[in-house]
């Protein structure tokens, strides 16, 4: 009997596309049963990392292990136990929801006698049972996204890879998908979710890995990351550009990170300050502050 310590283990993984290094000596371990948020701007290497996990991209250097299977050698064995929800909708539009799920149940080798039940269960999971026989091109955008998720879950995967699951969805649909992901995680499924929505990572991820330029530059629970980089309080000060520059200079002298947005500077880890930097509004820090502070990039 073997036990798998990590659902995913990437060690020293590099992936280049011509002159561009999309993933750069990446180390990433994901324990079984957690939801990991891969947070980063476009081009940070999230999507390439996701493709490495299904061996749809092959690393130039380093080792990739998924559910105990070394990739790409045992890629098919690993993929049989993974569910993938791609960023791009690639549903077969001319099929009904049921037909689409039946096709994937077979591609994922659900035994014949279990297929019908697996399809019904997946439809129910995403609340599309009443649309079972609707053609996909007649479904709304939100329903299509739900079906895409159902397709990734039809074979009860142990590991689910969600690539930007809620891009372009309205807030209500996004909330629904969040509760679905939360349910998966609560049932013990390992979830890896790439996102550039901070609030998504904050809401769902047990653990967040912040990616920039192909590497994980920090990693921890949202709370730990916030405590580490943004402290307990953020103070926001407004003013003209000269004043703001002065505030930034003084904050730097005190060793406090800042972020500038429009006519405002936010000083992180501001809990120890009295009136030193001037009057401002005090708020609780968020993961977004961490992201900006760690990557030096605003959220795009």
């Amino acid at each position, binding site marked *: 009997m073997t036990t798998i310590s990590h659902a995913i283990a990437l060690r020293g993984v590099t992936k280049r596309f011509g002159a561009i290094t999309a993933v750069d000596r990446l180390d990433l371990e994901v324990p079984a049963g957690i939801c990991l948020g891969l947070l980063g701007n476009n081009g940070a290497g999230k999507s390439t990392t996701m493709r490495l996990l299904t061996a749809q991209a092959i690393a130039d250097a380093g080792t990739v292990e998924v559910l105990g299977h070394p990739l790409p050698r045992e890629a098919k064995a690993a993929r049989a136990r993974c569910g993938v929800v791609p960023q791009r909708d*690639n549903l077969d539009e001319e099929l009904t929801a049921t037909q689409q799920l039946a096709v994937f149940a077979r591609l994922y*080798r659900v035994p014949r006698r279990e297929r019908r039940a697996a399809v019904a269960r997946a439809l129910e999971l995403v609340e599309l049972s009443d649309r079972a026989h609707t053609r996909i091109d007649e479904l709304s955008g939100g329903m299509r996204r739900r079906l895409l998720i159902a397709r990734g879950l039809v074979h009860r995967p142990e590991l689910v890879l969600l690539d930007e699951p809620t891009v372009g969805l309205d807030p209500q649909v996004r909330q629904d998908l969040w509760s679905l992901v939360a349910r998966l995680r609560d049932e013990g499924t390992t979830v890896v979710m790439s996102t550039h929505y901070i609030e998504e990572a904050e809401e769902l991820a047990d653990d967040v890995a912040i990616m920039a330029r192909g590497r994980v530059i920090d990693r921890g629970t949202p709370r730990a990351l916030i405590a580490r980089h943004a402290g307990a309080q953020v103070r926001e000060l407004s003013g003209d550009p000269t004043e703001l520059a002065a505030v930034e200079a003084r904050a730097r002298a005190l060793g406090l990170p800042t972020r500038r947005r429009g006519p405002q500077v936010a000083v992180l880890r501001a809990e120890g300050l009295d009136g030193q930097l001037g009057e401002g509004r005090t708020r609780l820090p968020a993961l977004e502050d961490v992201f900006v502070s760690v990557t030096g990039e605003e959220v795009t």
Partner: protein
Amino acid sequence: MSVVDRAVPDGPEAVDRPRASTRLELRALAGVLHREWVVFTRYWRSTTFSAVVEPTIFLLAFGFGIGALVAEVQGMAYLEFVGTGVVAMAVLFASVFPAMFGTYVKRRFQHTYDGILAAPIDVRELVTAEALWIGVRSGTYGLAPLLVATAFGLRPGWAVLVVPLIGVATGFGFAAMGIFLSSIVPSIDSFGYVISALVTPLFLLAGTFFPLENLPDWVAAGAVINPLYHTVELVRGSVFGFAGAAPLGHLAGLLAFAAVTWSAAVVGMRRVLID
């Protein structure tokens, strides 16, 4: 289902898991073929209509148009000559076009293959199943002109029963060629070059509508490398009777063509589908 249960890879369901191997797994092929079949049930009418009607029009137009001028070709009535030739043309059109356009669209616009390759299917299995599907379909469609010609007086022998097999072998090779071409063209518009420079000469210079010996020697000699020429010869042989060892040569030609295009398609598709 708990995490602990799942962490045991040697459980009873281990039987169902794909193994690390380089051979083609039947279940992987079946999964892709099943997908094609389910999708086909949605659009078979239009596909079948054009695949059947177009060769029939060729057959009747040439059969009666040229047949009025030419009584006999190579000892057979012209309608019989062209009726067997059009079988090869029907298979070619029903394989190379869907393979080029369909594969390109599924890869570049619909991202279908990204979804399939996230499942326990590798590129080789995907390409093989796609070519097999198109091959079987085009081999079936190739029977339409034969049936039409029979209605107009063609009286084939028993060997005609191997025509579907010839059709499938031909269709598989041309489907693989189309899949390969779809992996190297820079855009979907580039297929225009392929059609003019490759597909048209292939179907005209194969002994479909006129015997090759009427052509300049160098063109006739070149036809030997045209796989469709071998299809035409095999179809005529199976309808009117085989003679000597020539059919084996034609068969070898077809199979070699299929092996080369299949290998090229696997390499080509791997290059564009796997980063």
